[in-house]
């Protein structure tokens, strides 16, 4: 038997790694992948809690998260492609038009 806290700690580790990825990488694609990693970490926690609370809600949430993630990836990648077309790069440090 695995204590549920193990799963949660694993989820926390993966989440932190994902966050780290977002913070340290400049390539938009990799940042995107890191975000997916964070979503996965959250999903893992959901499923773990499903077993604790004995309800389907967690699984169903995971299901929705996946759907949203798919949508997000579709739009996000389209954005990246568009950005690449105009800038010939996906380095987000070069995208600084928001500078105040």
């Amino acid at each position, binding site marked *: 038997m*695995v*204590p549920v806290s193990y799963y949660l700690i*694993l989820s926390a580790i993966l989440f932190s790694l994902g966050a*780290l990825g977002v913070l340290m990488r400049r390539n938009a694609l990799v940042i995107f992948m*890191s975000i997916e*990693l964070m979503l996965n970490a959250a999903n893992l926690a959901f499923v773990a809690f499903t077993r604790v609370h004995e309800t389907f809600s967690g699984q169903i949430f995971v*299901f929705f998260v996946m759907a949203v993630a798919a949508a997000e990836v*579709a739009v996000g990648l*389209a954005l990246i492609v568009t950005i690449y077309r105009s800038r010939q790069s996906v380095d987000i440090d070069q995208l600084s038009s928001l500078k105040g």
Partner: protein
Amino acid sequence: MSLELILFFILAAIAIATAIGMLLSRSAVYAALYLVVNFVSVAIFYLLLDAPFIALSQIAVYAGAIMVLFLFVIMLIGLENLAGELNWRQLAWPLVMGAILLVEGVFLVIQRVGQDVYIGQTGTQLSDPSLMAKVLFTDYVLPFQITAVLLLVAMIGAIVLSKREKPALSNQGKEA
């Protein structure tokens, strides 16, 4: 130390390792491949947690669809050499923050959940996809529909975004 626990640790190691691998990889293709492995390991965790439907969805959606999409995009925009992207002087803050997050997360889990909470034993019911479907199509039918619309909108959005602007043919024709 049960077999399950051993399996858990092995898989956890793989998951963490592939995550770190992705973080550090020099090439986007490698990063993507690391991530696929990570997703598959997480899928196995789902199986361990008696959620077969989610596990298979995980493989189909994440490892399959999403990652293929990534690879397509990588192919589309060309391979970019990411060497030298990681500038260690810039990494101080991210590392600090990541560490803080990790520590806080772990402590929260310990504080709130405790180590002696075990997974329930009624898993056979929770693993039944048909029961889940029943809940999904009754209590959650409205969110379900909205999700469908969301996907449709995302699809249209992606099409609109990635469509190339048509060059103004008439003007060129005149000049030519």
